[in-house]
């Protein structure tokens, strides 16, 4: 039997197949076909000659929903809302994210005012229905929506997160009158308080709903026609899997499908490598994603907007910054050297691609400093021209007194590194985590190249680089587990609400119940003034819970409550909401697995071993983790002392004799042997500064002077 992972990106469609019997892995890459993504997938599957009848599960990650929002290509949405609240989307939270700028404009609402219709109805904060919906009125609204030719309708009523009766009643009438339209309610998408954020998420869901529905329906049909019997699984933003049926109802949950799979895979591989605290660091061409994994679990959030629109679905908390390998270095009006967020992209690309780009990028800087091979094509495809990089950098350096192209190149990299470091600090230090307690897990096209430097900045002592870091997300499809996320907004006082009480509310949520009877909180006692520091700490501790599990109900108020039930306390019967009975059921985030007896196949595929068609690495090393340990760490040989550099030195040449000089951040030269192929041979030997090979002559990591590296084996088991 086979397990298949499919990652459809903007440029390439990656298909990864794991053969259970042979315990072998096969990978293929085909060009994406944006006009009909299914075609690219089927081509990829055909290329591998796969028998879909013998396929246990196909897992799919995609960027369709995200791109539709980012590019404004969603469908025409209508909205039905409580009378008096027509303008919630346009009012937003009344804030400006760009200060001082009189020309700043927030994104336009996805539903223009003329397509927002009010209905006289009202539910109160405690779930009481003050005014039920009048069928007649909703019918009139439905007629107006029909006249406006909307393809999707978001039904968004106040306080529906406590009692969705009115919303459901209205939605039923609308669906009846617009049978072809995609209708969703705010309570089913994200039953959380704060109307703007909930309505926005619901509208996002409607905005991409018909697109995903059509695409997945088409893909499923095509797969079924080729013999695939099980249901298609879709990667969720929270790094789990949902059935395609579910994804068609709630496409907003697949917004971060691609990057989430990468993080989930990092968590998995990290665990196998013996690391449970990771900072994942995925640096691509235009942007970099960083994420925190604690105790083997990625941190989750519901606070990250997409294209400026709040999206309250649970997602892996990925912090994205606009700096990548293609980021352009430039001087602002005050002669400040800046890197990014503008990127040279794939076209024209960095100057060294020699495709017309003239501005210096991070990749050009890396090339000039010999951290990329000037002779080997990048990714085996793009030939790099060092002279172009040098010209671009020199042109910029001329505007900066006292800097030559080499110093500038180093500076650009240091600035890029400072940005990455800042992004990592935001997810660690700013949340009370010490980055030194974590391992840096680097992937993406440009990630491993900067990883060691970032690690040094943050005091991180170990860096792990997975095999094939450029295609890591696709591999992640195979290790993701089924999962469904629930959210409720209960109310309780701090100190008087043991987690078990919230668990009740959550269980009701899972079984489709209502939380109108959720525990009502008592008033908090006014705090007796303790010692100063202790009191400050008390405030912090109350919210520390929130940081871990979303907003914890706070001082007798409703706050967002993402609740983590105590392990093993879940009812044996999983939610009906997970419609696909063929799949192993619910995996509550952070909670225990609940697997009813006799349910489907065993847990997800074990991490597969590479097949013959896999990477041509050392034969029986299924996975090589590049672990970089700093000189101050336990793997203790001393680095070679570097010679100080005079400022007037010549550029580092590429020596044909197999010895290359490399420019390192410590501003010293270090000579070293070229491209060692056997990690073990190098262990404890020459400190290597530059690329570490994965395949022959392909460098994927750049390791500064003071670091040692080794390749270690990980024993893979299926448990």
């Amino acid at each position, binding site marked *: 039997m086979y397990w298949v992972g499919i990652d459809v990106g903007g440029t390439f469609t990656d298909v990864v197949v794991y053969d259970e019997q042979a315990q072998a892995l096969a990978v293929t890459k085909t060009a994406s076909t944006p006009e009909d993504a299914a075609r690219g997938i089927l081509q990829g599957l055909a290329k591998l000659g796969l028998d879909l009848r013998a396929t246990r599960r196909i897992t799919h990650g995609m960027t369709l929903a995200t791109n539709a929002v980012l590019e404004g290509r969603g469908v025409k949405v209508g909205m039905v809302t409580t009378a008096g609240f027509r303008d919630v989307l346009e009012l937003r939270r009344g804030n400006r994210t760009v200060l001082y700028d009189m020309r700043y404009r927030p994104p336009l609402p996805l539903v223009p005012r003329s397509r927002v219709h009010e209905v006289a109805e009202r539910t109160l904060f405690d779930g009481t229905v003050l005014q039920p919906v009048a069928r007649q009125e909703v019918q009139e609204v439905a007629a107006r929506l029909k006249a406006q030719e909307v393809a999707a309708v978001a039904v968004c009523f106040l306080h529906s997160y406590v009692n969705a009766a009115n919303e459901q009643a209205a939605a039923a009438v609308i669906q009846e009158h617009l049978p072809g339209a995609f209708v969703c309610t705010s309570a089913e998408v994200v039953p959380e308080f704060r109307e703007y954020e909930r309505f926005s998420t619901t509208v996002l869901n409607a905005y991409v709903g018909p697109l995903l529905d059509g695409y997945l329906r088409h893909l499923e049909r095509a797969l079924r026609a080729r013999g695939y019997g099980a249901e298609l699984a879709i990667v969720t933003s929270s790094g789990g899997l949902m059935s395609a049926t579910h994804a068609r109802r709630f496409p907003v949950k697949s917004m971060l499908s691609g990057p989430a799979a990468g993080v989930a895979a990092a968590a998995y591989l990290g665990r196998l490598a013996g690391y449970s605290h990771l900072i994942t660091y995925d640096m691509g061409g235009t942007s970099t994603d960083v994420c925190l994994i604690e105790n083997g679990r990625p941190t989750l959030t519901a606070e990250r907007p997409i294209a400026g629109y709040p999206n309250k679905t649970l997602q892996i908390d990925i912090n994205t910054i606009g700096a990548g390998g293609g980021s352009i270095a430039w001087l602002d009006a005050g002669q400040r050297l800046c890197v990014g967020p503008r990127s040279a992209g794939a076209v024209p690309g960095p100057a060294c691609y020699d495709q017309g780009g003239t501005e210096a990028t991070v990749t050009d800087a890396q090339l000039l400093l010999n951290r990329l091979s000037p002779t080997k094509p990048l990714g085996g495809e793009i030939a790099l021209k060092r002279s172009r990089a040098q010209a671009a950098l020199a042109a910029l350096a001329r505007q900066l007194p006292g800097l030559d192209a080499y110093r500038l190149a180093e500076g650009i990299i240091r600035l890029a590194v400072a940005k990455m470091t800042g992004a990592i600090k935001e997810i660690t230090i700013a949340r009370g985590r010490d980055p030194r307690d974590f391992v840096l897990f680097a992937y993406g096209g440009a990630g491993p190249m900067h990883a060691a430097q970032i690690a040094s900045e943050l005091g991180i002592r170990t860096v792990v680089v997975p095999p094939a870091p450029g295609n890591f997300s696709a591999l992640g499809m195979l290790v993701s587990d089924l999962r469904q996320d629930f959210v409720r907004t209960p109310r309780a006082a701090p100190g008087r609400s043991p987690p078990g009480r919230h668990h009740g509310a959550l269980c009701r949520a899972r079984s489709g119940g209502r939380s109108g009877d959720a525990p009502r909180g008592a008033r908090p006692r006014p705090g007796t003034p303790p010692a100063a520091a202790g009191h*400050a700490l008390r405030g912090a501790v109350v919210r520390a819970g*929130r940081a871990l599990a979303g907003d914890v109900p706070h001082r007798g108020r409703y706050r967002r409550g993402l609740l983590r039930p105590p392990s093993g306390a879940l009812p044996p019967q999983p939610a009906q909401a997970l419609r696909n009975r063929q799949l192993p059921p619910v995996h509550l985030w952070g909670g225990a697995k609940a697997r009813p007896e006799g349910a489907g196949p065993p847990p997800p595929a074990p991490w597969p071993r590479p097949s013959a068609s896999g990477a041509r690495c050392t034969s029986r090393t299924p996975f090589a983790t590049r672990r970089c340990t700093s000189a101050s760490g336990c793997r203790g040989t001393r680095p070679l002392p570097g010679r100080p550099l005079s400022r007037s030195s010549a550029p580092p040449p590429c020596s044909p004799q197999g010895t290359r000089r490399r420019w390192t951040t410590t501003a010293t030269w270090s000579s070293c042997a070229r491209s060692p192929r056997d990690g073990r041979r190098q262990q404890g030997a020459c400190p290597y500064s530059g690329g570490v090979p994965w395949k022959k002559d392909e460098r994927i990591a750049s390791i500064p002077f003071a670091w040692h590296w080794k390749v270690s084996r990980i024993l893979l088991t299926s448990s």
Partner: protein
Amino acid sequence: MPTGKGHPSGTSEAALPEVDPITLECVCEGLQAIVREMRAAVKSTAYSSVIYEMDDFSCGLFDPQTRLIAQGEDHPGHVIPLPWSVQCAMADFAGDLQPGDLILLNDPYRGGTHLNDVTLIYPVFLDGALFVFPAVREHWTDVGGMVPGSYSGLSTEIYQEGVRIPPLKICERGVFNRAALALLWANMRVPHEREGDFWAAVAALKTAEQRILEMVKKYGRDTFLRCVEWNLARSEARMRAQIRALPDGVYEYEDYLEFYHDGRLDPVLMHLTLTIAGDHLYADFSGSSPQVAGVVNASLAVTATGVFAALKAVLDPEGPINSGVFRAITVTAPEKTITNVGPYAPAGAHGEVRKRAASVTLGALAQVIPERVCGDLCGTSFPNAIGGANGRRGEPFVYYDALAGGNGAYGGGDGVSVMGNLDFGDIKTVLPAEALEIEFPLRVERLALRPDSGGDGQFRGGLGGRREVRLLSPRGAYSVLADRAVLPPFGVCGGYAAAPVRTTVVRGGKELPFATPGKVTGFPLQEGDVVVMESAGGGGYGSPLARAPEEVAADVREGYLSAEKARQVYGVVLRDDGSPDPEATAALRQALRAAARRVRVQHSDADPYRGQEGKHRVVVLHPALAASLQLAAGDLVELWGRHGAPLRAWVEVDAHAPETAVPLDSKGQRMLGVQPGDQVEIRCLRKATSMPMGT
């Protein structure tokens, strides 16, 4: 790029080491990161919703010379006056600061803005010497005083606005002054929230100390200081370059704040003389009204903030913010005026004074670079407070709401509706109805845009918002401190004024209007009363007759604009299907252009100002002329000359006035850019019958 030599900040930096541009960026970014971390600490530990839902707080870092060296996404109204707060604290405690000391203040005469903004300053020491001051300024929902929420429109002395805290050591050598804290909590409503907010600020300051010391350890003290100097110097150079590009000259502008004298409107004058001299800019507020026994007074630091925010928005929105930038701008004002308050006048309307300072700066700049300014801001922070006993919980509650208004339109785009203005931080001014209803005995009945409230123009000002809230507890008190409730925000370059702020209470289906619009103190509410709060729009840009008819039609279709106004103001005639009728529109626009009321200017040496405590400009018209212009005594009008911004005046009718001309003093002529014999356009803004004025 700054070099090591000869940059303006002087002192002993010759001894400091050379720093490469990369380290410079790393240190500067690092300082910003510290401020961001402080913000995260405050937000995640504070107790009151004004801070954790609205983000009404700010953080900054200062050096021992009281210069702002770093701030983040912080509220300009908080963070820009902060150097003065640190100066006041240093003046009191210089030489007497020890490690472990912590200074608390909110006194508007001594480093504060208004009493609700409570500031904590924490001197951090390095090797026994003062090194950096982190500071946090938080808006506390209540600091005592005569009404829930503390500040209100009709206060006459500062004691009514809450507890005044001059700079004091709330913590001395690590020991907190529990007596002082107990006294504070005893005098504020909902004290446990205040306490939680206080400790949140302490936590942020402690965090900052740790990070600063870590950073110094990494880069070294000298490198750190050098980077700070360079950063200030290059920021200054950047601002100076922007100012240098403006034509030198002296530009004047005036505007008003709404003050009630014995229940009658007595507008107070804010007068700005903006001098551009080379790469330096001087803003002088001489000629403004003396401070009044009302809320519309503020400290010079607050006034300067308004000037700075407007300049930055027009000249260089992306530039950094630190004391280096401020060095290129000098703001002065005579003492004991509305722009430089002294004891013991109230100072609740600091946000309004700041916004008006921004308005007059925009008005003055509209004379120099009209194509780069925007229409006036919505003119007020619009703080509303409803307090009372919470029937559900039996404890007092204070609900604080500051719905944002519209933004001014600019050449190239409409103003954004209901969004914090350019002098505002990233404050979430729209509180979720669902959160309010859980928290307070209130029901939100409407949260909507306010159609027709944006200033009309080729580019339309942003709309204000409307929130209706029903009181569900037996008793309550409503207060508001708004401005621009009578005088609307102005448009520029021919754009129209926006709708002013409006608040009412609806009881039993009937509106109870307030006699003093925008300024209400403790109006007693009954159960079931609905408080209606409508924020102002933003001023328009350019003539509405130049707006594309299709855009007007779209505005009508989306309900931003009424069809009636589209016809009357924009001259756009719509067909039944909502599309514009080109011929009818062209004809109507021509007729409207011809109907504009233009009058010749005649020089006058008479004093154009009237007022009791306040001061407002009058325009004296002959009865026949007034009648032909359909104006009556007491009407508020706008005069438009050659410059980008209009001049406001109240009509006086006098038989001795010239019959066919409007008399104007030389200052008025300068502000409008007209000379005797030129024509000015007169637009009526508000009829005397709806003006709550005495005379």
